[in-house]
């Protein structure tokens, strides 16, 4: 396939690069002919830069990034905030969880450029080694980790989970949909299901979270 298509691919690639350049400057009519191939192939491996600025842990950061850069990669590779971890990079493990405008999200499944003006909190913004956030301290106290790789995501998620319960957001296990949810073991387990711990520290994580919430389970 590769051999047979080589000659064709070169010229097609050139065409696509031309198409892309036109696209970037916004020429519309000139694109009418190669329109399908640009969409199908998008083969031009050109980096398309885009500017974005947002607050990270209270500090305004301005970046010029390839549009493809996920929020996770912007934090880790460009701002060198490596507390946030890349686990699966497809939204299944939760290691990349950060809090954006008060809500926890998977930073691997969103583009940095989509967060102009946002306020982002990473694990580095919750506390410091000298002054731990209560959730960080509780994870230490209850041994809520083994290898620690999922821990920043677990902690960001846990902080947000208690906020969600406080805000009255129901969950799958809330028995009465119209009642204000309570911090219970069942509620916390369900709400933390987007954070996987391969070491299996779940019961200790649960202990840490419920202690911070001030409940005994």
């Amino acid at each position: 396939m590769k051999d047979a298509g080589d000659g064709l691919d070169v010229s097609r690639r050139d065409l696509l690069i031309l198409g892309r350049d036109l696209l970037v400057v916004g020429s519309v009519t000139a694109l009418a002919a190669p329109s399908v191939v640009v969409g199908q192939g998008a083969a031009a491996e050109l980096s398309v830069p885009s500017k974005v600025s947002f607050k990270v842990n209270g500090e305004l950061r301005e970046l010029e990034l390839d549009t493809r850069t996920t929020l996770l990669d912007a934090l880790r590779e460009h701002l060198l905030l490596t507390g946030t971890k890349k686990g699966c990079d497809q939204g299944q493990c939760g290691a990349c969880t950060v809090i954006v405008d008060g809500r926890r999200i998977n930073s691997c499944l969103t583009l940095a450029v989509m967060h102009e003006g946002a306020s982002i909190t990473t694990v580095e913004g919750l506390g410091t080694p000298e002054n731990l956030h209560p959730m960080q301290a509780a994870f230490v106290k209850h041994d809520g980790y083994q290898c620690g790789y999922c821990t920043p995501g677990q902690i960001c998620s846990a902080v947000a989970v208690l906020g969600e319960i406080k805000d009255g957001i129901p969950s799958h296990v809330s028995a009465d949909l119209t009642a204000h949810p309570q911090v219970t073991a069942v509620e916390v387990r369900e709400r933390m299901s987007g954070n996987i711990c391969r070491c299996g520290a779940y019961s200790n994580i649960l202990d840490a979270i419920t202690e911070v919430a001030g409940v005994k389970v």
Partner: protein
Amino acid sequence: MKSFSYERAHSPAEAAASASRIPGSKFIAGGTNLLDLMKVEVETPAHLIDVNGLALDKIEPTPDGGLRIGALVRNTDLAADQRVRRDYGLLSRALLAGASGQLRNKATTAGNLLQRTRCPYFYDTNQPCNKRLPGSGCAAIGGFSRQHAVVGVTDACIATHPSDMAVAMRALDANVETVRPDGSVRSIPIGELHRLPGNTPHLETVLVQGELITAVTLPKPVGGTHIYQKVRDRASYAFALVSVGAIVQRDGSGRVALGGVAPKPWRVEEAEAEMPHGAKAVSDRLLAGAKTTPENAFKVPLVQRTLSAVLAAARS
């Protein structure tokens, strides 16, 4: 990921026009499914139109007593809305049964409807898939098909629509409001939004290129007991093997829609006439003509049993 250019749209009509004008355009809202697919190059948009700034994030009452849900209302906010919890409990329950807290915070109402199948062969670009590459074949047929659909399928595709929310929307008779590139608007009954695969499984909805969902409307509440029962391989954060969304009235009449069994949220209105005759009668009608594989044949009795449990719960 293939490179792409990016713009932030400022109005729905502008976004739709832009999408029809610029080749290879896609809208991006929550992006939780689109980016996932872009990473594996199943989706390769040349241009992304960010619609997050379009202020379509409100839930408002309609003149006829229903609700108009903006396309950008996040799954979390929709599930938590007091009116939805009170009057459309099925919708809250379905939303909360789906994905994880992180994903629900990002995923939008319109994006949830338009998410793609999680068929592993659709995701694997080394495998044939008529949905991803028309004419290449279907690796799921004869492959690992435990998760796949049993009704509405063809020899071209047996993928399921993965949404929980859409199942509730279907039972609630929701309408999908859109704006087209020429600025005209239309309202599509949710049952008509998704196409069955036929020989063209790559065509998943009736939307035209550039057509943007602006809202989903719900008719006035119908009362009854609302239940969403999802059966899956683990207790949380997994796609449905089978799900049953039901609204059951005191007299035993009601509505039923299914997830996990079809290429679209599955509802057969005629089956609901069988509700006084019990789960088997309804289930037989809902799944009439089912075409199973050895791996997913269990879904047929599972639907009946799950529906039976739902109807029993509604009576108690």
